[in-house]
């Protein structure tokens, strides 16, 4: 049985990221548009566009996710983080229309992960986004893809506080579901062919799924063709080269 010599740690996907996951580490470097709410003395070097020593209050700049997460506080407002373009309403309508046509890899390869991480920054004072999201929520057909009791739950939440992240999380899930069929079909049918064209539009999360589907298909096909019964050398052994004495001695 083929066991890989290295099993990567899966990404956390939810609000909690996985400390050991390489994907989550890369994800934490995604840039977020943000606005400084107070003066940052002597940190001007962080902002490349200006030469001043300090970062002035009200400066708009992009900062990586890990920095924004560390600086963001709900009580004392130091920075306010805006939604990246992909999660805004314009794109959300695109996703709800037909999620399969969107090139998620181009839209930031960690679409789902970043979307979940954006839940850390709920900004209820951001009226226009909250408005847009309320509209978006009202536009969801009741009893459609999401159960109507769930929807009622959402609307109740929305009316109590314009807690905006929920609706884009919903569109996140709907995007995932809408694209699921295609990911599944392409991963379970592409046997012995070049899959780069199939995966190039997939998010990293979907790529991992695609790989899982491919491994299932490939091992079954291998068995069916009777190749599973022939013994092969382990890839570890094949990759193992004898050490030369000259390499070991300084």
């Amino acid at each position, binding site marked *: *049985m*083929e066991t890989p010599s290295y099993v990567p740690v899966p990404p*956390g*996907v*939810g*609000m*909690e990221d996985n400390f050991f996951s390489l994907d989550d580490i890369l994800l934490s470097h995604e840039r977020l548009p943000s606005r400084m709410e107070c003066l940052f003395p002597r940190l001007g070097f962080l902002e490349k566009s200006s030469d001043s020593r300090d970062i002035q209050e009200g400066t708009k700049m992009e900062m990586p996710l*890990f920095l924004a*997460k*560390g600086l963001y506080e709900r009580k004392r407002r130091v920075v306010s983080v805006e939604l990246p373009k992909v999660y805004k309403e314009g794109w959300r309508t695109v996703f709800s229309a037909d999620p399969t046509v969107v090139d998620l890899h181009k839209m930031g390869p960690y679409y*789902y992960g970043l979307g*979940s991480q954006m*839940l*850390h920054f709920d900004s209820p004072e951001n009226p226009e986004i909250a408005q847009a999201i309320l509209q978006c929520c009202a536009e969801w057909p009741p009893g459609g*893809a*999401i*159960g109507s009791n769930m929807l009622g739950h959402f609307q109740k*939440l929305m009316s109590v506080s314009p*807690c905006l*992240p*929920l609706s884009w*999380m*919903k569109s*996140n*899930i709907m995007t*995932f*579901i809408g694209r*699921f*069929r295609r*990911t*599944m*079909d392409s*991963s*379970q049918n592409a046997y012995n062919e070049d899959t780069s064209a199939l995966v190039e539009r997939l998010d990293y*999360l979907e790529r*991992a*799924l695609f790989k*899982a*589907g491919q*491994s*299932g*298909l490939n*091992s*079954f096909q*291998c*068995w*069916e063709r*009777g190749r*599973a*019964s022939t013994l092969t050398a382990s890839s570890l052994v094949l990759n193992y080269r004898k050490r030369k004495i000259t390499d070991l001695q300084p």
Partner: protein
Amino acid sequence: MDPSEVEFLAEKEVVKIIPNFSLDKIYLIGGDLGPFNPGMPVEVPVWLALNLKQRQKCRIVQPEWMDVDKLEEIRDLERKEETFTPVPSPYYMELTKLLLNHASDNIPKADEIRTLVKDIWDTRIAKLRLSADSFISQQEAHAKLDNLTLMEINTTRSFLLNSLNCMYKLRSNLQPGSSRGKSQDY
């Protein structure tokens, strides 16, 4: 799970053979086999049947369901029904492959049987994919997998489990306050 492991499990199934040698009863941990008399049909596990067959010590009698008429019936039923229909054997795919590869001279119309079983398999896999899709799109929490065989579950297991895992995580984001408000240490 690897398909070859499923095949290993399938080799425990019982099949009827007609030996051409005589041997007393043999006592194994898994049960007693035999006695073997020339020309007298006896039931043995598939692994032993294949071993004896390879040494040309027996003739394998095909299982009852491995018959063109019966398989055609099953195939038509499978195509007609929306849900999965009961299969003749929980290891139909593995047994067909094992028996047809090693003992195709004992089984009449081997090629037709192979095609029919492959047809049944393809129909069932298409159904499985369809139901997985509707399972995901309706965001169901549980499903009942009646009449599915181990091999069929095995081909889609890792994909389905991984995607359900992702779904669960994305959905748990929707629960307000589930992990919100936890202290963050940076």
